[in-house]
């Protein structure tokens, strides 16, 4: 188990999970996550579709409430800047690019203080993302890449200690991606904590020093080089498959086995003694039990970790 866990002190900018379980409708999408994202880390969260990447980011920013456990982030949760995957942004609403970026100044300005004196700051942020001259364009006229650039300008202006990015490069061309990655490296250089959900592994290897692999529960967490190995990825893929409508109530104690490991192969996991006896302390019926019985082997966690996610 590698470095990022048990970061200790409550440094501003760190994110700490304690037995965090997030999900929808009682079905966990992220199961029993423990550990700390150190302040200043540049962390990629990877995993198959439905692995809970988006859910995890939503949990950190407070958009969904934990089913169990806690997440502590930064001095205040408001110090987090969050770029969601499918932004709920109404792009037909008639506001200009400058207005959109200016939303990033909500924290210092609030509802009433004047924006007039901030204009140079806004122009500067737009210039940093390559949108000079777009100030007065309505957001509805921007291309996908330009719009993502405008959202990054807003992130710059938010000036947050913690920046969460959910699939920021989906549908974005190479040049824009390169520009935005340079911005992210800049934020890392300034000591900000950046957490990005990504699916392009080459990109992760090239730009992100640490990686968390999840498949509804943490699979591996540590330096990217050590974590992104074929066995880990295969395991992640296998573990994020089914949604079980009739899932049993999880009796897993969030704190007693807070470690998960990088298993070289499933065989090793299977060899571990399962803490639960034949009845494994769950109250699901024998039928459900039978057809999935073999799956109980893998490790400390049990099959509920496989339940549904939509990320």
């Amino acid at each position, binding site marked *: 188990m590698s470095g990022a866990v048990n970061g200790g002190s409550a440094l501003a900018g760190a994110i700490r999970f304690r037995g965090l379980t997030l999900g929808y409708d009682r079905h966990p999408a992220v199961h029993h996550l423990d550990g700390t994202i150190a302040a200043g880390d540049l962390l990629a969260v990877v995993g198959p579709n439905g692995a809970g990447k988006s859910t995890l980011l939503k949990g950190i920013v407070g958009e969904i409430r934990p089913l169990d456990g806690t997440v502590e982030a930064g001095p205040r949760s408001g110090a987090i800047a969050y770029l969601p995957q499918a932004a709920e942004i109404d792009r037909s609403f008639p506001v200009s690019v400058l207005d959109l970026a200016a*939303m990033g100044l909500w924290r210092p300005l609030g*509802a009433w203080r004047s924006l007039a004196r901030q204009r140079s700051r806004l122009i500067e942020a737009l210039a940093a993302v390559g949108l000079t001259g777009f100030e007065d364009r309505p*957001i509805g006229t921007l291309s996908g890449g330009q719009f993502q650039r405008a959202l990054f300008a807003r992130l710059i202006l938010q000036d947050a200690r913690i920046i969460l990015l959910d699939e920021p490069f989906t549908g974005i061309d190479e040049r824009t991606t390169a520009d935005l990655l340079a911005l992210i490296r800049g934020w890392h250089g300034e000591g900000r904590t950046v957490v990005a959900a990504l699916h392009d592994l080459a990109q992760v290897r090239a730009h992100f020093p640490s990686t968390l692999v999840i498949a509804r529960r943490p699979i591996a967490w540590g330096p990217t080089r050590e974590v992104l190995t074929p066995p880990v990825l295969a395991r992640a893929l296998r573990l994020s498959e089914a949604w079980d409508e009739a899932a049993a109530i999880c009796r897993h104690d969030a704190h007693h086995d807070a470690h998960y490991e990088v298993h070289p192969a499933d065989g090793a996991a299977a060899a571990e003694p399962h803490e639960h006896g034949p009845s494994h302390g769950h109250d699901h019926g024998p039928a459900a039990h039978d057809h999935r019985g073999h799956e109980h082997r893998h490790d400390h966690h049990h099959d509920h970790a496989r339940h549904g996610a939509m990320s």
Partner: protein
Amino acid sequence: MTLADLADLLVGPFVEFGFMRRALAGCLALSLSAPPLGVFLMLRRMSLMSEAMSHAILPGAAAGFLVAGLSLPAMTLGGLVAGLAVALAAGLVTRSTVLKEDASLAAFYLISLAGGVFLVSLRGSQVDLLHILFGTVLALDDDALTLLGGISSLTLVALALLYRPLVIECVDPLFLRTVSRAGGPVHSAFLALVVVNLVGGFQALGTLLAVGLMLLPAITARFWAADLSGLIPVAMLVSMLSSVAGLLVSYHAGIRLPTGPAIVLAAGALYLVSMLVGPRGGLIHRLVRRRHLEA
């Protein structure tokens, strides 16, 4: 026709009759406050929601009518309570169940409307019902004018205070949630303003047409202006023009033309004209294709 004749035609009725001046003042007050709300409703695709809300006001007004007869304070208070209750209940159901806002609102307003008609028919005659449905713009007394003026002032001040969070809430509600807790209260305050204006409008135009002055000018403005700083003044202007035109037409018309519907019909006529000739996406501008630019 001489200029004097024209002046007589346009200004005469207002000079001559106090009730016309009162009607004009009331409609102009409403024209300052309702259209900006309509602009936001339209941009949020909530146009029909205000229609639903106007129906929701009916049972409250009817309850006031049952208790106190055709009394302005009783019916206004009843309408306010009913409108706010439906708005809040719909919001609560939206946040705590799977229903979307339009569905929960539809459920509540249908209950409310049926209840209102039921209440009115318990006591009133057909004439009373028409009174409630179509308003009494030519019989605005001092109390009604004060109410309209107060509502208008309150709305403009509140909109100025809420403007920035309201725009952010419209464009990117998720963002507002991550930086501030203002989203929920701002949305509720906005709905409350809509209710207050509909209650005011129902004094002048009746419940069924109160929505007219809120939405038609806003929708019309879409054909003339692109951004909020243009849409809001244009909507106000359209609303004022419709008010004046509606009052004059109903005054001069040979047949007995009720004033409330005349005002809404005037707004409707402006909408149809704008739809044809408006420079922003109007029909004719779409048909006549201009040469595209170089870049």
